[in-house]
């Protein structure tokens, strides 16, 4: 589809890291099906690094590609590094997103950060 870059289309068509992690160390959910986009991120943390990242996404092509890209970018990073991944970084890595998709579908980084926060708050409690 002409509205998307080749990278977006590639990630949409072959999304990386789709799935759930059983007994994940952190889970983050953002969005809402009423608005059209909803993402759940699952992370596994080993030695302060994201040893595994998986996601499930309900939403448009951009939302799926964003999730896939975020999961790839985050995997293997330290928690600090992963927290620095921004919406813009993701859009850039994807070779750009259509303007109207920047806000509603570009929630992947938020979902990842939420999953990390979930992990951190669980860790804090234990």
């Amino acid at each position, binding site marked *: *589809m002409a509205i998307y870059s080749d990278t977006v289309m590639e990630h949409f068509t072959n999304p990386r890291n*789709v799935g759930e992690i059983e007994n994940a160390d952190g889970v983050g959910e953002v969005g809402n099906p*009423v608005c*059209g986009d*909803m993402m759940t991120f699952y992370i596994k943390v080993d030695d302060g690094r994201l040893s595994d990242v998986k996601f*499930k*996404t*309900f939403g*448009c092509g951009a939302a*799926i590609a964003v999730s896939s890209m975020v999961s790839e970018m985050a995997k293997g990073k330290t928690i600090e590094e992963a927290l620095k991944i921004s919406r813009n970084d993701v859009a850039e890595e994807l070779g750009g997103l259509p303007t109207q998709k920047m806000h509603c579908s570009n929630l992947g980084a938020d979902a990842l950060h939420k999953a990390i926060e979930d992990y951190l708050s669980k860790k804090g409690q234990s």
Partner: protein
Amino acid sequence: MRAVYLDHYAASPLPEEVQESMLPFLAGSFGNPSSLHRWGDDAKTAVEESREKVAALIGANPEEIIFTSNGTEANNLAIKGMIAGSRRKGKHIVISGIEHFSVMNPAKSLEKQGYDLVTVPADEYGVVDLDELAAALDDETALLSIMTANGEIGTIQPIREIAAIAMEKGVPFHTDAIAAAGHIPIDIAALGVQAMSIASDGMYGPKGAGALWIKKGIRLIPLLDGGVQEGGRRGGTENVAAIVGMGTAAQLARERMGERSEYLRGLRDALIVGLPDRLEHINLTGHLKQRLPWNASFVVEFIEGEGMLLFLDAQGVAVSSGSACTSRALKGSHVLAACGIPPERAQGSILFSFGPENNMEDVEYVLDVFPPIVERLRQMSPLYAKFMKERG
């Protein structure tokens, strides 16, 4: 790869006859219908012949046909022009919740100017509620506009009954027949309406032409002021080629309507029966029987429309969706909402719209490629995961 075009609601290939009829008007017969010489005569004659063909399609008097540039212009002209010309004292405009944007938005513009907009609801099949409609019409009503059929969900309205109610209340009644004209028989006299919009590209004609039929004696204030084209009711040089193409399309529609709709109904029904056979949690939208012959529309649960469109496009299949993500305004379909479909389910909207060049192999191809796409998207969907977990 197979190319399967199933988005005739958005645009259709032109039959050979339509193309052929237009070509002379892009070449040698380039005259302006207003000109007093042979080039002008040729153009004028062509426009008037087309007017007769378009009129014949709906049983109208050719003099009562105003050519416009598309369906949206016809609807705007009807709504704004009939209101501006109305001699009724009331300031209410009554429409239904499933009208096309080109009826709804002009009505909303008038609302901003001080008119009262009353929106009559539809039932889950998209049929306008006749009791509510009757209750909404009174001396305050300046105009009623209800579409003949909705292209998104296919539902055909009981226009005759609606016209009878409007008549009883003395309310002028316009119907947007853009999705219906050329596909189901329409006879304005039998229906009892006062104005009707139709569009060329809605009936396998070219883009760039539409028409408003308005009954003699109903006052109309023009939208495009200018020269005396179209009897002073629509100024501007006529798009002769598109008007001629619309005439040919109207004639073909008259000649082939029965045959075409029987054929399309066959394809459509094969999909309507076949898809739920192969897929769980998929529901037809609109009315099962009172339905445009070319329309097969569904909501597929747990997933969103754009993903389906993209994967189908990759398989060579072109369709459309009423989901928020596929609309450029990023809003979910107000038509599905009016049928009571909750927003998260409306996100899974998908519309297969058939045309005469489709065949049963196209249906089979869709039945083959579409279910795996849905499965794949559901595998990614957190909603589906939740549902499966809850189901256990």
